[in-house]
Structures are given as structure tokens and as C-alpha cells.
């Protein structure tokens, strides 16, 4: 989304200011994902801090040629959250590492607005939206998610593919509208 390469180099050089700025840019999106997975504000805040501690400690492991900085942080956050869920979930099914069995029955109090989705994803058809929500915001694997939605894996994958295509169209439209407005100025 923006050119963070200089900030990331400074992060690798252990520049606290770079960490602070990167945190400002990414903590909101990452916190949202953690919250939606774990549904507990206190735990989510600990996990967020833990995630950025790892970003600080392991910054040298990040390889920009392999993907975006956000993707890297997202994976760290997701793995840490899944680990906590596995440890605390007594219903854990070890055979497929599923951590989501009976998840919906857990009465964890959290502001419902934290679980709501915003932006382009809300314009998707319900089943497309659910597919993305499961794999992106709830941390399910494709394999878990297609069972959750009770559709064949192939169908589920095509949901994801169509949803992504739709999102792509929406985002490119938004960008061209913004460019038009900027040009008009």
C-alpha cells in the first residue's frame, strides 16, 4: 500500500522510531484480525504486543522479495493467536489441529462491533463474504472452512476465488474514482 522499504530497513537496524511508525500503520488491521479470532480484548491486546515484539526481534527474517510486510505480520499474528486458542481450548481435536469446534458456543463477551466487517467485503454476496471471513478473519484453513460452511472443498475454493475477484473490481473502482477526484482538483 505504501513504500515502507526504508522504514523496514530501519527496523532491521533496530530503530525504535521505525517500529513505532510501522506499528501505527499496521496495528489496527492486525488487532482487528486477532480480536475476531480470539474474541477477547485482553488476550487480543497481549497477542498484539507479542506479535510486534516478534516483528522487532525477528525483523531480519523478513524478506521483502517474498511478500509484503503486512502479510508477514499477519501470519505471525495468526499463528500466535492459533497457538493460544489451541492451548486454551479443551475441545481441541488433535487429528487435524482444529481449534474451531464449538467455537460459536463460547460465550465470550466482546463488543459486537469488533466482530462486524467493514469496507468492500460488505458488498459481497453472503456466501462469498462468509468464505473470506472464515479464512481471513477467523483463521480457519480452507479445509476447516469448507466443512464449517458445509460445501465441498472445490466449491469453497471457487467462492474464495470469486470473492477475491469481486474485491479486486471494487478496489480498482475506488482507486479510479479517487484519481478522478484528485485530477478534478
Amino acid at each position, binding site marked *: *500500500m*505504501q513504500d515502507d522499504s526504508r522504514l523496514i530497513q*530501519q527496523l532491521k537496524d*533496530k*530503530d*525504535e*522510531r521505525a*517500529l*513505532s*511508525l510501522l*506499528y501505527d*500503520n499496521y*496495528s*489496527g*488491521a*492486525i*488487532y*482487528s*484480525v486477532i*480480536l475476531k479470532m480470539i474474541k477477547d480484548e485482553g488476550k*487480543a*491486546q497481549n497477542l*498484539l*504486543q507479542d506479535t*510486534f*515484539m516478534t516483528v*522487532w*526481534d525477528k525483523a531480519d527474517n523478513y524478506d521483502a522479495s*517474498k*511478500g*509484503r510486510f*503486512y*502479510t508477514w505480520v*499477519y*501470519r505471525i499474528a*495468526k*499463528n500466535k493467536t492459533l497457538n493460544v486458542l489451541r492451548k486454551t481450548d479443551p475441545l481441541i481435536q488433535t487429528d487435524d489441529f482444529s481449534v474451531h469446534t464449538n467455537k460459536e458456543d463460547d460465550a465470550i463477551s466482546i463488543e459486537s462491533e*469488533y466482530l462486524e466487517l*467493514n*469496507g*468492500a*467485503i460488505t458488498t459481497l454476496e453472503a456466501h462469498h463474504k462468509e468464505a*473470506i471471513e472464515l*479464512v*481471513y*478473519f477467523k483463521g480457519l*484453513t*480452507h479445509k476447516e472452512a469448507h466443512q464449517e460452511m458445509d460445501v465441498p472443498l472445490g466449491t469453497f*475454493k471457487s467462492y*474464495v*476465488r470469486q470473492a*477475491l475477484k469481486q*474485491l*479486486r473490481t471494487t*478496489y480498482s473502482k475506488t482507486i479510479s474514482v*479517487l484519481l478522478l*477526484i*484528485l485530477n*478534478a*482538483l
Partner: protein
Amino acid sequence: MDKKMLLENGLLAQYVLGELNAKDREQIEQLLASDAELKAHFDQLEADFEQLGQDNAIAPPAAVKSQLLDAIKSSASNDTKVVHLQPKNNTKWYLGIAASIAAFLLAGSFWMYNQLNDVKQQLQTVESNNTELNTTIEVLNKELQDTNTFYTAIVNPDTEQYILKGNDLLPEAKVVSYVNHKTKSVVINTERLPKLDADHDYQMWADVEGEMINMGVISKDKNLMTMAYIDHAESLNITIEPAGGNDHPTVEKLVTNVYIN
């Protein structure tokens, strides 16, 4: 695994989401490194995923950040390190765009406001013109009405015309009077009456059996005017009196008279 399979099987999405095992990851990374088209597709996908995340961002409490910064300071306390304070312009691009839109709207509002003011001013001009025209019409109407009144009085077949010619005191004077005994009206034309100074006025009298009865003071700024009609008048007389008129005529200042049949 090849490119076609990668594109059709949704594996790239799973890769971005971190679902794949080490072996699959390595294969995908090799394919990405060697295929620019695939890499472009992957870049787009990642950007969209990031946008999706940013769309749904929830600001964490500020305490998390300060704890984080404290934690890294204490973990790296034995490092002596210079922190470069670089004034990097880190404003988020969408804030910039929001600001642009706001500026655009502001400029638009300002323009509309100016337009509104112009229109208001024009409306005011039109309104004052309108008032002026209305006043003119009122004045013209009044004049027309007066003129009509005089006209009907003068052209009435029952109206008789008497001419008052100036005597020795005022030989150049001439007043035409139109008397109608049926409608009991008197209209006089004073066009030929010489101007008086501000201290004096002409006054008109009717002679009824030897008594002079006031018919009214003659206005200085009108050529045609209505005077009081007096029953049984034998003659019409005009005298010069102090400004504003007199109760009794100053007979030595009589300038003209005419007998009525």
C-alpha cells in the same frame, strides 16, 4: 505444481494466508521468483488482502503501544544505540485523499457561497428597482387621476368658462376659471398669474350679496387647481394676501375679478 495449477487451485490465497506447509511454500516461492506474470498476480492478491485488513482496522488502546515500546527498550537496554529522528512523511495515503476530498468540498462550498452572495446582491438590486418603479407608477397614477378630474370638470357641457383679466395693479395676469353650477365645482388655470414672493399668496373670493367669501388660497406650484364652490356667487375675485391667506380680503390688493351670469 505448476503455474496453471497455482492460479486455478486457489493455492496462492492459501499461501498468503499462511496455511501451507514448508514444502508447498518453497515450491510456490520458486515459481513466483521465476514468473513475472504470476508474481504480478500475487502482488495484487497481497495488496487486496492488505486493503481488506486495513478496511477493517480497529485501533488498539494506546497502552499496548507504550508497553511494546517499554518492552523493547528493556530488552535492548545494554545496546548503546543512536536513534535517528528522521522526519519521515508518514501520513497515510488515504488520509491525504480524505483531505483532498475535504478540500474539494470546501472549495465547492466556497464557490457556492460566492454564487449565493452574487445572487442575493442581484435580488436586492432588482428589489430596489422594483420599489422605485412602483413609486413612479404611484406618482403617475395620482397625476393621471388629478388630470382626469380636471379634464372631466373642464369638458363637462354644463361647465362655463370665465376669464379673469388683470386690472391696473397686475395687467399681465390672466386666470381662466371653469365653473359648473350643476356639479358645484370650480377649476382654475393659473398659468398666466405672475409669480409672487414667498411672503405673499393669491387668494380667491366669491362675492355673495356684497360679502366676500373665501374660495381658497391659490397654490404656487400648480397650474390647474380646484377651488371651493360657493352658492349664489355673483363674482369671482382674486387678491394678494400675506402668505397662507387671510380671513378677509384686502380690497386694495384686488388684482382681478369677473362677474358670473
